């Protein structure tokens, strides 16, 4: 490979130079090339040349057909004339080695007949250009056969272009049709190059794969970095939207982004309204809350020891009819402390409030019916709780020690 590379470069250089010089020099060097070509063709013929020639002839036929379709009346015969002549000469010039190409480009009989009318010069031209190419390749590409295939193809097409243009020069009558041919072949060229570039791009993304996000462009999608980034962004957004769709109840059935957004808006607004309503509710109860807040800290702390009550075996939510009635949506959640507080049936804590609103120093009576088994847990949690949180509550400091002491008694009266 390392040896083949410089040769590849050389080959490319040659082709560029050659294409430039070709148009100027071809008339003088005709004979010379022909001779050299003959030598080359006798000397070494690689099967790849045959396939090349096959391709070439196929190309020409394709373009010819296109021209025929485009100009069914005008250019049909003439084009047939020129090209069939070219094919014939090429085929004959190559001798038995080009049998394949001849059969592939099998010209119509009419063309064959008329081919004789054309000047020899043109035939020579066509022959010569194909010869020249072959001579070059025989010299340079022998070693790097597989490697240079892509470039060779391009070169081939360029040469066909040249051939066509030369034919146009020779035959001013067929200019329109040959232009058409040129367009065809050039469009093919473009396609080829675009395919090449896409290949390159895919290679690049493959190289980048371990470092960055792996992006795969499907067939026909753009592969430049901007559109790739945009696609990644869109995918991410749609992923998130899917997640949002799962989050919002009843959004799964809706197709279309607008409907989904509608549903999300409705949901968020309903939640906000719910909050408003609940705050209204709380505001209505508000004056009485005043004195209970400390109790709620207690309850909140109790929520910490909720796990110890799992020994009771009954899930508190399910046994509580009040909760089920009020929030059917949130059955699965346990917010522990509160549930216990308002559950009269089986749970350990019962509280009654007899608080007149105006007086700050009223008594809130709370009865704790604690099971003997769980009383130990209560001790720990309450003591830790009151030492930490309760100081920010009211001035009347809670006698935590007496509370923990009393908790061991099953029935106690708490004074706040």
């Amino acid at each position, binding site marked *: 490979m390392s040896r083949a590379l410089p040769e590849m470069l050389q080959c490319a250089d040659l082709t560029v130079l050659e294409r430039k010089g070709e148009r100027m020099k071809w008339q003088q060097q005709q004979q010379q090339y022909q001779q050299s070509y003959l030598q080359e063709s006798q000397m070494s013929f690689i099967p790849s040349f045959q396939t090349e020639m096959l391709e070439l002839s196929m190309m020409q036929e394709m373009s010819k057909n296109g021209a025929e379709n485009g100009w069914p009346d005008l250019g049909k015969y003439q084009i047939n004339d020129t090209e069939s002549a070219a094919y014939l000469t090429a085929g004959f010039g190559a001798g038995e080695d080009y049998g394949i190409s001849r059969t592939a480009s099998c010209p119509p009989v009419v063309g064959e007949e008329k081919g004789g009318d054309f000047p020899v010069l043109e035939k020579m031209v066509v022959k010569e250009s194909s010869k020249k190419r072959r001579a070059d390749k025989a010299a340079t590409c022998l070693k790097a056969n597989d490697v240079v295939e892509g470039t060779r193809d391009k070169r081939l097409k360029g040469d066909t272009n040249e051939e066509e243009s030369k034919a146009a020069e020779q035959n001013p009558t067929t200019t329109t049709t040959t232009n058409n041919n040129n367009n065809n072949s050039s469009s093919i060229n473009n396609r080829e190059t675009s395919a090449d570039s896409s290949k390159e791009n895919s290679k690049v993304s493959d190289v980048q794969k371990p470092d960055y996000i792996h992006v795969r462009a499907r067939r026909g999608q753009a592969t430049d970095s901007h559109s790739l980034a945009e696609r990644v*962004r869109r995918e*991410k*957004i749609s992923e*998130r*939207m899917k*997640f*949002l769709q*799962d*989050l*919002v109840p009843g959004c799964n059935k809706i197709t279309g*982004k*607008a409907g989904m*957004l*509608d549903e*999300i*808006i409705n*949901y*968020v*607004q309903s*939640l906000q309204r*719910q*909050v*408003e309503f*609940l*705050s*209204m*509710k*709380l*505001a*209505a*109860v*508000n*004056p*009485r*809350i*005043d004195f209970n*807040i400390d109790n*709620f*800290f207690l*309850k*909140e702390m109790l*929520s910490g020891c909720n796990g110890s009550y799992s020994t009771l075996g009954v899930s508190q939510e399910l046994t509580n009819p*009040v*909760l089920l009635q*009020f*929030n059917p949506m*949130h059955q699965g*959640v*346990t*917010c*522990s402390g*509160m*549930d216990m*507080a*308002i559950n009269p049936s089986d749970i350990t804590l019962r*509280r*009654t*409030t007899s608080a007149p609103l105006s007086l700050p120093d009223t008594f809130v009576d709370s009865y704790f019916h604690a099971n003997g088994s769980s009383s130990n847990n209560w001790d720990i949690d309450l003591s830790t709780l009151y030492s930490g*949180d309760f100081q*920010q509550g009211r001035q009347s400091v809670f006698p935590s020690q007496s509370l923990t002491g009393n908790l061991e008694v099953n029935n106690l009266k708490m004074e706040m």
Partner: protein
Amino acid sequence: MQASNSFKRTFLKKFLVGIQQTNLASKNTSLFERRNAIKLSSDIALASARDGANWSRAIVANASKQEKNKNLVKNILGEVQLDRFTKLQNKGSSLTCKRETCKRILRRSRLERRIRKRSPKRVAGSAVAKRIMKKRSHFLKCVVPGGELMDEFSFIDETIDYIFSLRAQVDVMQRLANAFEHCIGK
């Protein structure tokens, strides 16, 4: 897909602090005022419980715009958190100014375009759909606090986060209300 219990607990704690604060501050007020105060305190409590999100910052910023609420915000958040919030908020405020001027220019240009477009033309269906989408997403951005300043991608993230915490908020408040009602019923 539920918010964690610890989140709910912190929210409840802050919320109760806020309620206490409002009760101490205003003894004889109308129901609506009290409702607003409670809603505000619940929002701020939610914001402080969910620290770090854009929407919570926006809530705190909106709340502390008014002088009378500043004390409440300070009490609920605490000094350290408030510092952090205000720091971020100051950074964001310059951004809002810029956005507003941009919006003004944009509105003007849009007006011009609208005038130009008055000529009766058939509008493509895709254009209509696009406009509807734009309207919806704009509306959603208004619904989520602080959504106006976000780009689309982070906005969706924020919306998900906001919905989670709203659910938690509703849940906790419902329980609280139930508990109070039960207490009163006894």
